[in-house]
């Protein structure tokens, strides 16, 4: 069975229309959950851009989410920006952080980047607590009351679509091919004349933008942020699990993984809150060893789907 383009596009268009009109009918819980799924698609898709495509594992992607949340919240409360502009500000702040970390760490091969990202989270948490005047420290930061959940629903949805579309554009471009060459054999990539440092850095900057915006949007939506709510390791773990489960290095893998794991999490694991992070660890181990290309990889093999999805 091979898929043709027409029906796929039709189904996608139908899904978009359905999601656009959903807030008019859906319950508050339903809209909120869908908003969360959008957020996870954007986060997982962004992690996939650096780690799935170049093979450079980011163990601290939540740092971009957190700095986006704080930048957005500060721009709204202290500078009085409206939230859509502040969300972009959150994205920019995340990109700046990515530049600062990526510049020294991506020049090197090997595990330097992975470990630097592992430590980044703690550092940001310490900095946020230290600059109490600006961030409220451990007391957190409250935003002015505003019910914008419905508007944020659409913006977050657009973000999820944008991250997925950018992934498609990259994977089907020469830029994406070069990134994947770096993943398969970096020395060979260099020998072919690819400026690997610049490619990795650009991919990393793009992958920081989405989480930064998502963080600012989440801050606005929840109206209150504190260091432990926007810098938890659990967010990074969830991104990684979603991408690995769905299929890393693919366009639809992160989408599939985000939806599947979010639904499973809500229905089943919410009843056993302590077991579920343990299962996440087990899923990572199992996927790495048993199905490195994830669920989508299995489907691609079975149904001869194109490699570029």
């Amino acid at each position, binding site marked *: 069975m091979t898929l043709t383009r027409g029906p796929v596009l039709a189904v996608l268009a139908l899904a978009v229309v359905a999601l656009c009109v959903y807030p008019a009918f859906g319950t508050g819980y339903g809209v909120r959950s869908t908003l969360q799924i959008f957020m996870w698609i954007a986060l997982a898709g962004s992690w996939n851009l650096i780690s799935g495509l170049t093979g450079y*594992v980011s*163990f601290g992607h939540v740092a971009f989410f957190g700095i986006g949340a704080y930048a957005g919240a500060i721009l709204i409360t202290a500078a009085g920006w409206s939230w859509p502009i502040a969300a972009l500000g959150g994205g920019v702040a995340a990109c700046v952080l990515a530049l600062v970390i990526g510049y020294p760490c991506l020049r090197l091969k090997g595990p*330097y980047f992975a*470990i630097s990202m*592992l430590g980044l989270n703690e550092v940001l948490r*310490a900095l946020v*607590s230290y600059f109490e005047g600006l961030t409220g420290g451990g007391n957190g930061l409250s935003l002015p009351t505003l019910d914008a959940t419905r508007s944020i629903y659409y913006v977050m949805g657009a973000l999820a679509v944008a991250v997925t579309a950018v992934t498609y554009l990259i994977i089907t471009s020469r830029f994406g091919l070069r990134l994947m060459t770096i993943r398969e054999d970096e020395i060979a990539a260099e020998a072919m004349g690819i400026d690997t440092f610049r490619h990795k850095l650009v991919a990393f900057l793009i992958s920081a933008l989405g989480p930064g915006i998502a963080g600012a949007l989440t801050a606005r939506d929840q109206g209150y942020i504190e260091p432990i709510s926007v810098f938890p390791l659990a967010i990074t773990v969830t991104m990684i699990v979603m991408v690995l489960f769905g299929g890393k290095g693919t366009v639809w893998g992160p989408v599939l993984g985000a939806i599947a794991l979010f639904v499973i999490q809500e229905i089943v694991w919410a009843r056993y809150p302590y077991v579920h992070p343990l299962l996440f*660890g087990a899923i990572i*181990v199992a996927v790495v060893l048993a199905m490195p290309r994830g669920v989508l990889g299995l489907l691609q093999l079975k149904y001869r789907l194109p490699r570029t999805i």
Partner: protein
Amino acid sequence: MIAQVLISGVLSGALYAMVALGLALIYGVMRVINIAHGPLLMLGAYTTYFLYSRAGMNPFLTVPVAMAVLFVVGLLLQRTLVFRVVDAPELSSLLLTFGISIALVNLAQLAFTSDLRAVEFITGAWVVGGLALSKPRFIAFLFAAAVTTLAFLFLKFTRLGKAIRATSQSREVALVCGINVARIHLLTFGLASALAAGGGALLAVIVAIQPEMGGVWTFKSFLVIVLGGAGNYPGALFGGLLLGLVEQLASLFLTTQLSEVVAYLLLVVVLIVRPTGLLGGRST
């Protein structure tokens, strides 16, 4: 004041060196960065806590027991999971050990809860010539120095130690010389876990124990390796002492809160200026 900082720095530096040596061994021999190194340290700390609180053992005497227990845990991890990714791309080994680390931390949370535990065995300080020498930290330092020395003697003079060093220099040549490389990998992982556990057991006497205590130790151990130069085992000693000193200086001149930020900046600066380590070492 400076002398006090120097002493505190050296005292914690020895612990860093001991724990980091384990991570350095695994990286040198297998080219695997073990993200689960910190959680293994945490398990060592719990071993000491339970032997102390349930069996009433002297916590310093539990160090060899914790090391032996975690040696076995390390063997099992290597034998069942880690050996599968030794030759795989880095992505696989990083993610696999990351998954193991998440699983270990959450297992500990289920089994031991996230309550803070403390081993209050010895407190207070000796005052020597105006300088305070924290008793638990000083004894822990002696133990760490002894274990690290033993580990270096083992690597330097025994046949197995030489086989480990040979394997880390060139796996192929080691294989040709008749070294059973798979067994060396197994032994190395066990040994590294034991070193982490020893660090955890000593740490149990100094700080509070909880399931997430290990995370920062994976990072710090790696920082120590980078400072000393990857693949350069004595470099771990130098890196450990340097990190200890820098952290103490940072908490003297800034605040304790920022000492982790300073450690992180140290990593970034070294990666920019001398990625092969301050002492030199195998290039990346």
